[in-house]
């Protein structure tokens, strides 16, 4: 995955466990700043290695870590230089998810070789969304769940994100929520 994602994982480890924990992780994996170049594509194996090292240090299973990282990515994107794009993408959960593909379309124009997922809202009612997720990666379910969960927090909503159905080439996520303030 892109170095941008690695930087986010690093920030998460930084925030949770401090700089030393990250430096120890770097040492263990024999990586350094050159594995965190924003605009570079790295083998997914490296991304997985970083996540699994991070999960061990955070005392989480890999799935739990992916979920946390999903939640973290939303926080990461909204507080850094990506904030403007996040704000622009949508002002409520429904429209934000509706526009995710358009957001990633811009991402794919900026980052050649990126492998981005696609999200389609297949049903939308107050407090209830069914979203179809397609990707050429596997094993990202918990990451996506975490991302949606992070979006609930972003829009001051509370609720549950579950997997409604595993289809042949996609996964349907169900989001039940209540708007907050």
């Amino acid at each position, binding site marked *: 995955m892109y*170095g*941008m994602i690695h*930087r986010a994982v690093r920030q998460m480890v930084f925030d949770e466990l401090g700089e030393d924990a990250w430096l120890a992780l770097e040492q263990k994996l024999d990586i*350094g*700043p*050159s594995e*965190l*170049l*924003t*605009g570079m594509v790295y083998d997914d194996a490296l991304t997985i290695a970083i996540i699994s090292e991070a999960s061990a240090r955070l005392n989480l299973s890999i799935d739990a870590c992916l979920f946390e990282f999903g939640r973290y990515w939303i926080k990461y994107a909204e507080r*850094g*230089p*990506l904030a*403007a*794009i996040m*704000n*622009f*993408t*949508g*002002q409520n959960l429904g*429209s934000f998810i*509706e*526009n995710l593909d*358009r*957001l990633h*379309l*811009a*991402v794919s*124009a*900026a*980052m050649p070789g990126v492998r981005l997922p696609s999200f389609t809202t297949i049903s939308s009612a107050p407090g209830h969304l069914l979203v179809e997720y397609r990707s050429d990666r596997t094993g990202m379910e918990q990451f996506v769940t975490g991302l949606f969960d992070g979006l609930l927090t972003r829009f001051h909503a509370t609720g549950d994100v579950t997997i409604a159905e595993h289809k042949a080439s996609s996964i349907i996520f169900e989001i039940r929520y209540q708007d907050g303030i």
Partner: protein
Amino acid sequence: MLLTFSDQQIASLLPAYLHVDRSMIITAMGPAVRDHLPDIRIGMRCTDAFDFVHMDMDQFFDGTQDVKPVRLIARRGTMSLFGAAVFHEHGCLLAVRHALSEESMNSGSLHLSDFGHGDPVVLSTMLISLQRAMLEESQATAIELAAERERNAKVLERTSRVAGYLGHDFNNLLSIIRLNTDRLLRKFGDDEKISNLAHIIQETAARGSDITQSLMTLSQQQTDTLLPITIDDLIRGNDTFLNTVVGAGIEFDIDLQAGTAESVISYNGLLNCIINLLINAREAMPHGGRIALSTSITRGLVTSRSDGSDPEPGAYVAIRIADSGSGMSEALLSRAFEPLFSSKPNGTGLGLASVRDFAVEMGGDVWLESQAGEGTTVYLHLPLANPSAEAQKENEVGQSAQAPDDGARRILLVEDEPYALEALAEMLEAEGYSVTPCESGDQAMRALEQQSYHLLLTDIVMPGQDGTEIARQANLGQPSIKTILMSGYVPDSASLEPGWMFLRKPTDSNELLRLIASAF
């Protein structure tokens, strides 16, 4: 072809559209108008809600054009819409969109849903914003990379310092072993058994010394011995090799006029410099030419420093290497000594820079004279080892101010390791020198006050005053004193002065005796 779209379809293509009838009454509008301008309602007159910029509204429906460019500014708020007015029988579709800039995106007033799918302005504005974000991250990464490089350099420096200290301690031990084995050989060398054992110890010490040598190299320590060297002899002794360096096809003249003049330098260091300079000269003449290598004795470094900062016009051995090549332009000449600068396609740029480092370290200098088309001449000046002795020879007048004249050859010996001190003193005394052994700088200072010496032989790294400080004091009080420093490690703080000799520990007794003998 006539296409019919539902309101919803139009809204998804043009979320900020408006439709008006022929009396300019709003009959439909897109969600991006509704959301941002809640005051505007269906049934309102459009011109009450918006200003049509540069448009004569009386002739809006004049029927001459199917499509007109329009720009609308909301009368309340700052919203601005632009696009086209598309006319039809019953009215007009205002196919307009929000203006989007990075600023309006950052301000959060507009959202993706306010724009139609496939709106290229949206994609490019997002792209710009994303690239800006990536650039910010990249800058942060660049800083991290630079910091990491610095960290690595620091670790390397620390490691090399540790290697240096280790080497120093080990060298001291080896030095003691070596000196005392020599002592053993001198005293009991006739006994074959003892002699054999002593040789085994010596060999083992020599192997240990090789190991410390590599440690020292790792720590980038000075490992070259600095001795008075007759420069003409060095060139003469290597002339066959130098001829090979220059190669066939180039005429190579050597003219040595420095006689027996000596400079205290590293033998290999100077040889490397000459080779570097010859290679440069050769490469300046791919089609052949002539190189002249000459030596002479000269005063001062005048030509090198135009700012007049030349310290004192001391005596120097001048080595001159002139080629008949293409020469250099002013611009090239001014950059020639920069490390990593090379005018040659495959040049490393290290040649001249390292020659300069060497020359300056030895107390001399190097400079170039060149003109495009007329060849280049390099001057390498190295301080004369013993200018007063030269002068003495020239004038045949005894000048050594405080040199003892009672016939004794006095050596002030400073070494903090008692075993080494004892062995050295004994060895030198056996050679007929009169030795004052001192274990510290303090003792040495006292000895200097009481007597004058021909020679100071001192260790460098010692507690209290280090060897270079002792040497500086000794030279100040007794300017004719010769100085030999010994060490397995030269700390950065200890700078050797031109003319001081330097011997690497572990000390080889024969080499030391030769060096001392040459000083008298």
